[in-house]
């Protein structure tokens, strides 16, 4: 779970890196099945991180500071 804005930025940068990696696989992979399966894991990780970002952005900072630890 993302705890603060700094972790939000790190997660956004990680997503960008993963997207660039998938694009690189797409450029270099000539075997369609290799591409789908190789990219699949990275795309799943992108989905997971995007969900974390959505959960973090959904809450207002005041709600987060009031949440029980």
């Amino acid at each position, binding site marked *: 779970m993302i705890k603060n804005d700094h*972790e939000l930025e790190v997660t956004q940068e*990680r997503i960008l890196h993963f997207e660039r990696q998938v694009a690189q696989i797409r450029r270099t992979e000539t075997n369609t099945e*290799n591409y789908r399966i*190789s990219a699949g894991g990275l795309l799943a990780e992108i989905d997971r991180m995007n969900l974390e970002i959505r959960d973090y952005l959904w809450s207002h900072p005041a709600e987060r500071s009031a949440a029980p630890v």
Partner: protein
Amino acid sequence: MGCTRKKHDLFWKVQMKTGARHLHEPGLFSRVLQIDFVSLRRVPRGSRQHYRGCDWIGVVKRTTGSTQMKAWPDFNECGDLPQGVHLATLEDVFRRFAGTPRRAVTARRLERIYRLALSTGHLGRFIVFGSFVTTKIEPNDVDIFLLMDDSFDVRQVSPEASLVFDHAAAQNLLGASVFWIRRAAALGGEEATISHWQLKRDGGKRGIVEVFGHD
């Protein structure tokens, strides 16, 4: 934590530059060894970076004395290995990270995945990252990144081994989060791609482990 092996008891992979009289694999052996070769082959030009610029790779069976494996470094205050890629055999990983019943189960899963990846004949590098290689008492699962040779074709592997390369299947059936690419797709080069897996949620870095012991 390290281990001392007597001569004759194992085969080791070593690397050398052309013309070297003695062999030294940085990070694996703690000192220069004199050895007998079982086999010797030239490193393909495209793989030199992986073998740290060495020209030859050999398998050896005898040394003039005992060989001291590199000791595991201490964990830092965050419970992480120091930054870097730490070379280790599967046996060393077990010694260091399989210390609780839960971890032993995870380590056996790791070993299964390693054997399956190795069975393809195209495993380039096997990287373990995430909470399993930290002091976390009960890591959820094990995170693995595989760099496969460019000749790897997922359609050619056995049904069981194919589970390793399907992220969802590996998660559900092998208990691991597995990512893989072929060497040609390494963004920024092999070392940069591997190094990226050191990144933590807070932007810091922690050490990761490369399982060593295969060609």
